[in-house]
């Protein structure tokens, strides 16, 4: 492999490894806008990953596989919002419970369907989301290797980031979501159903997380294995926390974690004796990222808070279609 090819492959792997984290971060972003943390993304994505594999094998349709992944994600989102908003459970506990149910439930279902506890590999004839070669760009040396030949779901992750941005900042629903997040009582006073908006946010969040799950089991690899997410949902969640709920920022930070992941993969080959330390890199980077960004935010503290308050006042004063 030539040097430029090696660089191209490395850059390619950044996009590939960032994809599930981007979906997780976007899923977190949507509920964060309504003031709720979705800490069950890990469970949502895990369930979706299994659901995609099973239904793509059953229906022999890639589209249906992905759709069922999204549906499974939404279902879990619905369960969380029901438990939290109607059942009045503590959100943290709910999400811990949902993650537990997803971990145990997927392994259990896996065993019931295939008779093994490890993977669906060779047990289920599941499909793969096709990869796309971009004409012209694919012939450019480094850029071509980097940008071309990705899974459709990888390209769609960036489209999805744009869609989430549109949803949050350019639609009525998004405005209501932000309003509920900023001040639920104010939202209630102008006739917005807080429960309904939050539920809708969880359903959409689940669907977006479901796309990430579908990517993991139909693109990243083409099977489901237990605990295959290995904390990616939480890494995405922290990418979102760091950027305080901005879809574009969350995407960029997810890419940063993708770089950490890709570097770990490269180092794994070269530094064989230290492979376990290399595997820690993404998690260490995540903690460091949170520490550094929170420290910066606290240093800026007052100024930042001021801005938010002013923006919020200006924002609500200008919007007329809150009804």
């Amino acid at each position, binding site marked *: 492999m030539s040097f430029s090819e090696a660089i191209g492959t490395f850059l390619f792997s950044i996009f590939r490894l960032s994809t599930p984290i981007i979906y997780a971060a976007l899923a977190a972003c949507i509920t964060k806008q309504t003031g709720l*943390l979705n*800490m069950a993304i890990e469970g949502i994505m895990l369930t979706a990953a299994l659901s995609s594999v099973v239904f793509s094998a059953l229906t022999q349709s890639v589209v249906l596989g992905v759709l069922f992944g999204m549906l499974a994600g939404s279902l879990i989102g619905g369960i969380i919002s029901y*438990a939290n908003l*109607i*059942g*009045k*459970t*503590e959100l*943290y*506990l*709910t*999400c*811990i*419970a*949902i*993650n*537990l*149910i997803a*971990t*145990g*439930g997927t*392994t*259990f279902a896996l*065993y*019931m369907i295939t008779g093994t*506890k490890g993977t669906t590999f060779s047990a289920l004839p599941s499909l793969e989301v096709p990869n796309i070669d971009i004409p012209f760009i694919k012939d450019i040396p480094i850029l071509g290797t980097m940008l071309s030949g990705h899974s459709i779901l990888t390209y769609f992750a960036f489209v999805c980031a744009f869609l989430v941005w549109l949803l949050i900042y350019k639609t009525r629903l998004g405005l209501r979501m932000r309003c509920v997040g900023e001040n639920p009582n104010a939202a209630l006073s102008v006739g917005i159903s807080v429960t309904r908006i939050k539920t809708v946010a969880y359903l959409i969040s689940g669907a977006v997380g479901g796309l990430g799950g579908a990517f993991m089991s139909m693109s990243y690899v083409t099977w489901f294995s237990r*605990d295959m997410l*290995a*904390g990616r949902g*939480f*890494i995405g*969640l*922290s990418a979102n*926390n760091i950027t305080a709920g901005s879809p574009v920022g969350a995407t960029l930070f997810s890419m940063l974690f993708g770089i950490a992941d890709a570097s770990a993969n490269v180092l794994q080959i070269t530094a064989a*004796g*230290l492979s*376990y*330390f290399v*595997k*820690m890199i993404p*998690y*260490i980077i*995540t*903690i460091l990222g*949170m*520490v550094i960004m*929170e*420290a910066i935010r*606290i240093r800026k503290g007052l100024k930042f808070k001021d801005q938010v308050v002013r923006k919020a006042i200006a924002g609500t004063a200008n919007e007329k279609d809150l009804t």
Partner: protein
Amino acid sequence: MSKTRKIEIVFEILRIIAALLIAYLFILVVLVAISDEPAKAIYNFSIGPFSTVRRFGGIIQKAIPLVFTGWGMCFMYAVNRFNLVGEGLFIMSACMTTYIALALEAFQLPKVLMVLLLLVISIILGGVIAFIPAIINAKLNANIIVVSIMLNYILLYLTQYILTRLIRDTEVSYAASRSIPLNARLEKIIPQAGIHSGIIIMAIVYILVVILFFRMPAGYAMRVVGSNPEYAKHVGIKVTATIITAQVIGGALASLGGAVEQLGMNDRFQWTELTQHGMNGVVVAVLAKKNPILVPITAFLLAYIKQGAEVVNRTSDIPAEFIIVIQGIIILLVAADSFLSSARNRMIFKSALSPANGLKSNS
């Protein structure tokens, strides 16, 4: 105690019992649905754990580590911090005690000294590691669940490094440490049931934990901070310091559990993935309503369910993983404030209207 408070407590207990019953029924339904021989599966699950001394001993064996991680979570949960580092600490502590026991093998220390030393080291280890997410959360307000889960993965890989590079027994084909020296192992006190002296350690720690939680200023401060941080600030409790202390103690307890489990149950260190003991601790603490006194009972209940699942798993082809699902359902039901709340509110309303309170009922 006011009448309202009494009704509330009664309903708290009712709710936990109802949650357990629902979860239990759920298990039975699942067993009937998927088993080829439902009657046998149900018998094995519900009666099986009590059918032989060995199996009953298995419940106690399983309960001991859960008591420790459950106490750990009680402290974390008492100050409202869902620090999940207990999961990683459990495996880390088991690995480190093995490592140190092997390193000190040549000195031939007396058993009591060796075990005490290892337990103290595990306590310190747990406290120090639990301090990391605690301080990050307290000073920087970073999400504690994310930080602690990331830390769990780091701890897991650290143990795997120690296992494969430092303590691995090259004479066995699978990844396992060298055999733990005999002077570091906890004695089996009831050999026919496989119960080790960890149960004595548990009893001692039980007394200490209850005293600390209910009879010491530090424990009081934790409970006040957890239930009402504003009030705690006004009466001069150092809120941040209390929150961190609680998590350090919680981590130390979970870590101690890992050491006791390792020295009491295992000949070698051979865990290659997280053991779920930390997450079980969450369930135990939630069921006990973060009251350390009740933890041994709820740990026993969970251990019974786990043992039942294991018996079923061994005698049929039903995987034990459905127990993890059950734990999630139990948490949801116990945590759901609205579960049975309308009945509770009706009772409170009725008692307020009763003539004993001097109010006239309109109905």
